[in-house]
């Protein structure tokens, strides 16, 4: 039963962290280069622009859910299962989500990188 709980936690981590990453990336692209924005308008304006962005707020909620799902997962199964499984699957799901939702140009080089890193993470956990 604990195995089922652990894999449910992994699925929840992958879904919510992918949603969080995609929304955060969209929010930060809308805000622009933070170093340049801080230099131009000051720290308060930069922080205000980030915190007022709706995508940023939803991204934080999604990432907080992923964080708590990870804590649950770690209490039900070994870190050597939960972290590599969720991390490697998130690399691949993020590449797909970035192509679909962010319209990033995910060429064969970036796909290969996502798959190699995901495979590498699994090998590290064996």
């Amino acid at each position, binding site marked *: 039963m604990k195995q089922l709980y652990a894999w449910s936690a992994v699925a929840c981590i992958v879904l919510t962290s992918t949603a969080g990453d995609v929304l955060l990336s969209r929010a930060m692209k809308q*805000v622009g280069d933070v170093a340049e924005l801080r230099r131009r308008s000051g720290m308060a304006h930069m922080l205000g622009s980030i915190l007022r962005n709706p995508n940023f707020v939803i991204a934080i909620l999604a990432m907080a859910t992923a964080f708590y799902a990870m*804590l649950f997962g770690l209490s039900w199964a070994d870190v050597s299962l939960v972290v590599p499984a969720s991390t490697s699957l998130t690399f691949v799901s993020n590449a797909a989500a970035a192509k679909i939702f962010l319209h990033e140009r995910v060429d064969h080089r970036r796909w290969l*990188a996502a798959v*190699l*890193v995901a495979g590498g993470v699994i090998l590290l956990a064996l």
Partner: protein
Amino acid sequence: MTFRKYLVLVGVAVFAVTGDSLVSRGMKHLGGVSLHHLAGIILMVFRPEIALGVLFLLAFFACYMAALSWADLTYVLPTTSISFILLTLVAKFALHENVSLTRWLGVVMISIGIGFVTQGPALTPQPRRRDSHERLAAPVSARTEL
């Protein structure tokens, strides 16, 4: 890519590894978590190890946000996976742990993956929206109707 930007990417990797390790250690000391004790689940972030881990994860998050403001998600994620390589090197040379051949193979695969990504640009140009393209291409009479 400037030196500052490379530093931000290294910051993402180092802070994530430290934060995750501290949270993991804290959770192991805590034992099993039950859905019936919701207050305990929320309060566990105040345990010293977990709290310190959260601080490192906040530093990771600041660097991660900065990186996403000038680079693609599909560039930042594989590039910052250098953390797995760092962790293996620390395990081998600082902690003198036995790192198996399979793990070294994993390190090689991640290194090749990072190599593939860093050869390309950090930010790819966004494809032009179809509707705006069509609007520009439309004849004047059609544009007035829009």
